[in-house]
């Protein structure tokens, strides 16, 4: 028996388990941030009873959903109704595999990490569509169709904006991409247009305000999640916050140098200390962008469905195309 192979399998199993477990505290922290930041902008206190600064509020919420009755409507399609939350959650959890937390702290260091990420994250739309269809509810159906339309439309500018980055760095591997940024400066200097497109499209992709068409509570009650209760609803909820974390994490890896520290600090250290140092910077940057997304939610109203689609096809897509062509020509001409 090849010892290296065994070690590799063990390492993979350990990494996937860790990532799966990591989704839970991640979601809790993001929910807590959302509760507190929105409360702040609304001149409220927010949760302040359970634990210091109400820190365990979302934990309690988690246990609460576990204890709730798990109801399946009579006319729902039981098999798909049960499967849908799992699909959405796994799409989020699986895409977490390639997130580069720090040098040596990537669960799966694929050489096609970027392709894998967008392929897997796109799976969640299937879960939402299935949830909307299986619920046997008109709001769910409308929400499911909205999610399909929205996520499929925004995936195109989202991916195209990243192609510019890939062309420039010449790699699909997140680790090499960050090493490239270490040598040449953060990608945001090279690809500012791509950054703007990516940010807008990523908000739409993970259904955050102002693009939360899918579960527009004042129109569609809760969209595809209307009929869900208990832990099935909890999984949707989890997946949403994990997706927010992942999108912010991927954005800082693509454009803000991932685990690299900003200028006055040494940008990378060696050994185990280097890993901790990288993780630290990764989380600081990621949570800054999560906070921005939460502030947007507290500030903006929701765009309408036709405005949303118009923006994807009439503005973002052409812009992403132009950006990609200009980048490609520049790479050819200047031999970057």
């Amino acid at each position, binding site marked *: 028996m090849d010892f290296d192979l065994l070690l590799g399998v063990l390492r993979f199993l350990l990494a996937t388990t860790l990532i799966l477990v990591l989704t839970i505290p991640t979601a809790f922290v993001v929910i807590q941030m959302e509760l507190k930041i*929105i409360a702040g*902008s*609304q*001149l*409220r206190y927010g949760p302040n009873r359970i634990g210091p600064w109400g820190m365990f509020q979302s934990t309690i919420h988690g246990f609460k959903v576990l204890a709730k009755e798990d109801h399946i409507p*009579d*006319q729902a399609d039981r098999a798909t109704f049960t499967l849908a939350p799992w699909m959405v959650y796994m799409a989020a959890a699986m895409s977490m595999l390639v997130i580069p937390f720090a040098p040596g702290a990537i669960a799966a260091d694929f050489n096609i990490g970027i392709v894998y990420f967008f392929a897997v994250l796109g799976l969640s739309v299937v879960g939402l569509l299935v949830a909307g269809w299986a619920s046997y509810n*008109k*709001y769910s159906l*409308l929400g499911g169709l*909205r999610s399909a339309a929205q996520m499929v439309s925004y995936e195109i500018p989202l991916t195209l904006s990243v192609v510019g980055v890939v062309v420039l760095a010449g790699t699909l591997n997140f680790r090499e991409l960050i090493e490239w940024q270490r040598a040449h400066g953060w990608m945001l200097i090279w690809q500012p247009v791509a950054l703007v497109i990516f940010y807008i499209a990523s908000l739409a992709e993970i259904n955050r*305000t*102002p693009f*939360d068409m899918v579960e*527009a*509570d*004042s*129109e*569609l*009650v809760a969209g595809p999640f209307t009929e869900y209760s208990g832990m099935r609803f909890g999984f949707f909820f989890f997946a949403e916050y994990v997706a927010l974390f992942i999108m912010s994490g991927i954005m800082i890896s693509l454009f803000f140098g991932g685990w690299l520290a900003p200028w006055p600090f040494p940008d990378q250290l060696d050994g185990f200390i280097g890993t901790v140092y990288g993780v630290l910077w990764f989380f600081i940057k990621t949570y800054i962008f999560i906070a921005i997304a939460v502030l947007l*939610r*507290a*500030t*903006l*109203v*929701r*765009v*309408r*469905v*036709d*405005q949303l689609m118009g923006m994807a096809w009439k503005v973002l897509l052409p812009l992403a195309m132009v950006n990609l062509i200009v980048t490609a020509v520049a790479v050819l001409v200047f031999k970057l």
Partner: protein
Amino acid sequence: MTSEVKIPDPLDLDRDEEARLRRVAGMAPERAPAGEYAGFESVGLPERPPQTEREREVYSLEEGEMLVNMGPQHPSTHGVMRLVVKVRGEVVTDVDPVLGYLHRGIEKLCEEATYTTVLTYVDPMDYLSSMHNEHAPAIAFEKLFGVTAPKRAEYIRALVVELNRVFSHSLMMGFLALDMGGITPILYGFINRDEIVDMLSAISGQRMLFNFFRVGGVNFDANDEFFSRLGTWRGHVLKNVEMSERVITDNEVFRSRTIGMGTLSGRDAIALGVSGPNLRASGVPFDIRKAHPYSIYPELEFEVITQPGGDSNARYLQRIAEIKQSINLIDQIVDKMPHGAVQAQVPGIIRPKPGRAYAAVESPRGLYSVYAISDGGPNPYRFRMRDPSFVSLQAIPKLMPGRLIADTMAVMASFDPVMGGVDK
């Protein structure tokens, strides 16, 4: 030795009734519904054959259309209202508002009550403008009974009524944003409301259903706590309003959601009977306070504000302008307020001479009026209230067709209906 006992069905269900009960219970209809119900199986609507041409039109579906029941339990129907929305994909093709879920028979209750106690029943009608609800009957009964309230009472009435208008309009700003997914402005609206409600509870003793007006005056004189709270509030209210304005007025997404949405021309608005801020937002300068002055409004200086647009954004801007106007009016009222009694001499049980009286006030939602007939007894023979939000709702089915589902709630919120008043 079990003998099968057949329990006779007390309801003696016929075919259609059975199908209806099955649907209500969430079961699939065993037999295909007959006749008038054909085509409704998947909708669960209506529960009886259509009664009118209009109903037949709404409930008959073409290929690709679907009926969606918005309410009575829905996050944004402003109380318990049901909108039966006919949609083709996301596009609304027809809307049928179904009312009556909050009907409490207040008119009948008032006809059973004495003139003094009527004023306690009208409070919960339009629960965001309780002071206006009391103002109109108080004026009508004073006309019937031939009594005039003292000057100071009239000033206090105008003061509390304008305060009520301010908080009602600031809540409307919040609800409008909330129905479009903006979660913050509603909290700012409630901060403003809370301060005013504290003030009004200092003067009347209650926070929501004030029960403050009396025939021939008001219940209590304005006390020190009221004026102290009023002064504090007046010091920062404009800053508060500006804060909520900053979140929504110039917000690009908000503007694109409201400009050109639900445009109601002045002519249509008059034809539909729309009144108040909604009418003035369509460019018609009609304000009861100017057109048919009551109370002390002839003594105050103000212009009728209008907006040219007639769309949701104009209705929103109209509210903002009226908040500022009301604050200006409050300044004038406090400035001119005389001393004296706040209650005229009125017997315990009022028995007006037979006759009829009409009184209209400008409530935050429009023309709120009361028509009372006396037959000489201790209670009104007939007591009729015209609620402005009931009339405003007529505009909704007219504005909806061709819009998206997302706009139904946004446009409805811009009319600011309150179901307590609609259903009475």
